[in-house]
């Protein structure tokens, strides 16, 4: 799929199933939300087997950055080099269907991504006892666990996780940290925005505060509001 935000891929690495050698290189990236540039000059490299934890206060642009990386919105400027079909994005919403059971939800995403790793994902996220329960009847934490289990059935190497631990209890956070660790050991990579300590000591930390764009010059699309006001002046 050609995503508008992607400026290129790595030659010779089009196989999305191979978890080895999947590097993500971001250079001089600027991203915008609602026409206002929130982050600028951002650059980092994420190598296979690495995890990078992004930190920054609310509203700094973590979600906007992730949506740009996932190709859901175009970058203002800069370059994102990522192998095609290698990235999976877990947002605040889990993408679950309330009237489908846990297994049916996972089976759907496994079929879409052409993998059959449903049982492994259920085991990894400790969803055994909930297999046949409808997603509507899960607690918030259980839904989150199911949403994270979806990452495993995508079979994609680079995980982009936006606040993955919201509504998880301490045991589930530890469980999830273990899942991320084994994903990294298998040659995957993870980009995680979180406010809590996941217990991933090996992960690098990137503070986004220095990359905050200067918004004092006003929003890019500021003209529209002014014109509207003038029309009725």
């Amino acid at each position, binding site marked *: *799929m050609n*995503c*508008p935000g992607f400026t290129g891929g790595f030659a010779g690495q089009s196989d*999305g199933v191979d978890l080895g050698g999947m590097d993500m290189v971001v250079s001089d990236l600027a991203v915008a939300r609602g026409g206002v540039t929130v982050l600028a000059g951002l650059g980092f490299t994420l190598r296979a087997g690495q995890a990078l934890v992004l930190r920054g206060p609310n509203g700094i642009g973590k979600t906007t950055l992730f*949506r740009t990386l*996932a*190709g*859901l*919105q*175009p970058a203002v400027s800069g370059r994102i080099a990522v192998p095609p*079909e290698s*990235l*999976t*994005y877990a*947002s*605040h*919403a*889990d*993408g*679950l*269907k*309330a*009237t*489908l059971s846990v297994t*049916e939800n996972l*089976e*759907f*995403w496994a*079929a*879409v*991504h*052409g993998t059959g790793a449903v049982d492994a994902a259920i085991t990894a996220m400790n969803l055994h006892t909930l297999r046949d329960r409808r997603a509507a009847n899960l607690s918030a934490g259980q839904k989150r666990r199911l949403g994270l289990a*979806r990452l495993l059935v*995508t079979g994609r190497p680079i995980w982009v996780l936006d606040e993955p631990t919201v509504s998880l209890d301490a045991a589930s956070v530890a469980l999830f940290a273990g899942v991320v660790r084994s994903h990294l050991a298998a040659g995957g990579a993870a980009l995680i925005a979180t406010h809590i300590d996941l217990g991933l000591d090996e992960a690098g930390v990137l503070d986004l505060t220095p990359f905050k764009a200067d918004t004092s010059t006003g929003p890019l699309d500021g003209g529209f509001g002014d014109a509207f006001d003038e029309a009725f002046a």
Partner: protein
Amino acid sequence: MIALLIRDLRLTFRAGGGFGLGLAFFLLVAVLVPLGVGPEGETLGKIAAGILWVGALLACLLSLDRIFALDFEDGSLDLLATAPLPLEGAVAVKALAHWLVTGLPLTLAAPLLGVLLHLPAGGYFWLILSLALGTPALSVIGTFGAALTVGLKRGGLLLSLLVLPLYVPTLIFGAEVVKRGSAGMDAGAPLALLAAITAGAAALLPFASAAAIRVNLR
């Protein structure tokens, strides 16, 4: 693709999925019109083709906003857009799923309602044929409208306003096929035009819908 089709059909048939809503609406329209117009068979027979087509069109409209809105709310649409499935294909599959649960049942139920409306005996074949050829266009055009309005709060009304004008050619040619067929005239020309609209819409609109979704997800 097939997984998406199965999921959409399964969701529709489960509780709160809205299957049968369009069909029930269609039935009500066909029952209410004779009550309003009066029971004279001759009058009803004249307007039957038009009423059945307008009813089918409005019944189709009822369920359009569900095509993408639910997937947008729970985040599935973001995930589908980043999945290996081409978005154009996903849109086409969703239009097909919509037709299977609205257009197809409407087509099959229409002859029964034709009896209520005193549709002339020669018209039944043409009614089924025109609905079978025309309702896929309603689903595909409606999917395009749903893609344009996805993410808007209370986009349902705007969706109707956008889509209804686009339904006009399908309605005109569809009703014309039944009218000519009932009167024993040659219905080949409107039938060919109806099929052309469906084929053109099914070939082109999934691309437009996918582009609209990409813009709306930004």
